[in-house]
């Protein structure tokens, strides 16, 4: 393996990790507010199909991304109304959202299956892309990858350094206390869920506009689920999510790369790597019960109804 090949592999790992990064960032914000949304895959697929439809009919990639974001947040709004307003079970509602989104996206997209669009073209950032190796890996991507860099940095700042971040954490850790000091818990959760939906939408758009610029049924192939594991893997920290997304991206292309190089490891075994990694991290985290409690938002998955407050 020479340096050029390694550069190309890392470049590909970032590309493969980007949809995971988008969707996991959305989910982590949602989970930080105490809501577990298992509907990622459904929202992502709806984002992918709507994004493709919009880009295909208007010819504008920007509109495609926008449509995907709107669709993603609309899907998450359905979820939000059910779990926040009506107090439905989060796990069941999330699963229903995934199944709903999978079927609906196949239905909506049946007319454009097999059509193609141009897709985003990569932009090399002047100066930065000239850095040896690092420039090749990081700064010769398309605009959505740069957007994911920007969103990660912004979220890191907002969550860790601002009042908004504190409010979000307060709601996720102890909604009763947050409510008592006048934070509108449900409102915060609505916003967090819809942010998650919009991010799932972009993630879907990345699949159908950049990664494979076409729409086919079920094209996200379980990435929504990997993202859920990724959030746990990263123990709800923004920086680790970025790292984890690229690691997962790397793991998912590694078996293809190694085969081309003539390694005789079973491809099935290698394809298993990302999932193995998740299981191992889950085991490590859950082994220490105290630590697990410390890491996960404490009210995660529990409903909150302000009307029950004394």
């Amino acid at each position, binding site marked *: 393996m020479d340096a050029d*090949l390694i550069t*190309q*592999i890392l470049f*590909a790992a970032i590309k*493969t990790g980007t949809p995971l990064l988008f969707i996991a960032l959305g989910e982590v914000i949602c989970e930080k507010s105490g809501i577990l949304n298992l509907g990622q895959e459904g929202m992502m697929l709806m984002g992918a199909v709507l994004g493709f439809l919009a880009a295909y009919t208007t010819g504008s990639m920007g509109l495609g991304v926008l449509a995907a974001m709107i669709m993603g947040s609309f899907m998450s709004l359905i979820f939000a109304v059910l779990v926040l307003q009506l107090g439905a079970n989060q796990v069941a509602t999330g699963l229903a959202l995934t199944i709903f989104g999978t*079927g609906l996206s*196949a*239905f909506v997209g*049946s007319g454009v*299956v*097999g059509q*193609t669009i141009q*897709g985003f073209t990569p932009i090399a950032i002047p100066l930065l892309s000239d850095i040896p190796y690092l420039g090749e890996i990081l700064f010769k991507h398309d605009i959505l990858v740069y957007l994911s860099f920007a969103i990660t940095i912004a979220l890191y700042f907002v969550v860790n350094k601002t009042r908004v971040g504190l409010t979000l954490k307060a709601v996720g850790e102890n909604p009763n206390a947050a409510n008592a000091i006048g934070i509108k818990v449900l409102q915060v959760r609505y916003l967090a869920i819809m942010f998650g939906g919009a991010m799932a939408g972009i993630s879907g758009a990345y*699949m159908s506009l950049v*990664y*494979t*610029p*076409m729409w*086919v*049924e079920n*094209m*996200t*192939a379980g990435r929504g689920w990997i993202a859920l594991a990724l959030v746990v893997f990263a123990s709800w920290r923004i920086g680790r999510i970025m790292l984890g997304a690229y690691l997962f991206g790397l793991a*998912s*292309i590694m078996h*293809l*790369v190694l*085969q*081309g*190089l*003539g390694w*005789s490891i*079973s*491809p*099935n075994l290698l*394809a298993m790597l990302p999932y193995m990694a998740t299981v191992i991290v889950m085991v490590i985290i859950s082994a220490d019960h105290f630590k697990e409690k410390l890491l996960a938002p404490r009210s995660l998955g529990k409903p909150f109804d302000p009307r029950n407050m004394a």
Partner: protein
Amino acid sequence: MKMKSLLLSLGLLAGASAVQAEDPLKVGFVYVGPVGDLGWSYEHDLGRIGLEEHFGDKVETTYVENVPEGADAERVITQLAKAGNDLIFTTSFGFMNPTVKVAKRFPKVTFEHATGYKRSRNVGTYVLRTYEGRYVSGVAAGMMTKTNTIGYIASFPIPEVIRDINTVYMAAKKVNPDVKIKIVWVNSWYDPGKETDAANALMDQGVDILIQHTDSPAPQIAAEKRGMRSIGQASNMSKFAPEAHMFSVRDNWTPYYVSVAEAVMNNTWKPSDYWGGFKEDMLTIESINPNLPADVKAKIEETYAVIKSGELKPFTGPIKDNKGNTVVPEGHSLTDEELAQVNWYVEGITDEIPR
């Protein structure tokens, strides 16, 4: 279509099984991918439509798409048989055991399984001589590669795929003795994301010609993006890669579907193992890219013609495998039965078949 498969799985369509003599022949199809894959399943569906066009009211067809190979397939095939279909085509290798199993329970229904090798009283098999198309692909790839490296995106290590890899390599080597082949298994017939990853991984490693044994046009798009060349699989994929696409080897199932339906209608059907290729027009070369050099274009036409006429049989001895054993003795051409059991790489492929 989702709805139909849902209804089938709930057994709601099972009531309509009373078949009367003047009723049309009911024909069911099971596809492994979506009809919109624009590859394998798409062409089978064109075959189904061709069948309807040929017989008009005399046939009635239904299909279930996106059927996973395995337990789900058995359920879907059972439901199609229960729904009163007289003839059922199952169109992927992985449907072999489910087809044979269901056929035992429905002795009056005729089953036809594509690409398999298990037959019984009411199960026949049919397969394309895809290796004929691969031979033409190998010749063209061998002539066009500048890096002397051809990439092969493979699905599952079954005889059909292994046979085709061998053919590509043997043909390419004929025209270009320095050629190498890199093989990547994606363990799927249809996964555009993974096919793209595989295409890129191959191109990262010096491959400049992509040949795919998977069904989505994703590798074509990947080749187009990076200015490499590609060969279309199963269906005409030229529109996905106007520059990259060299030509497509298209499957044409209509003639076979018509002949089988006719045999079932006339009660003359017998289980057999049918092989169709260039000669029967069940494989065709389509959309040869005008941007190819004239000598390559001529060689493609010429190779097609000598295979079609039977003058060239790709698996003619002497052929050694990559462990040094003689697998085809001098003067012998593999019979269809032997072709169905190819489980070795030819000499020169420095790789091992995954087990």
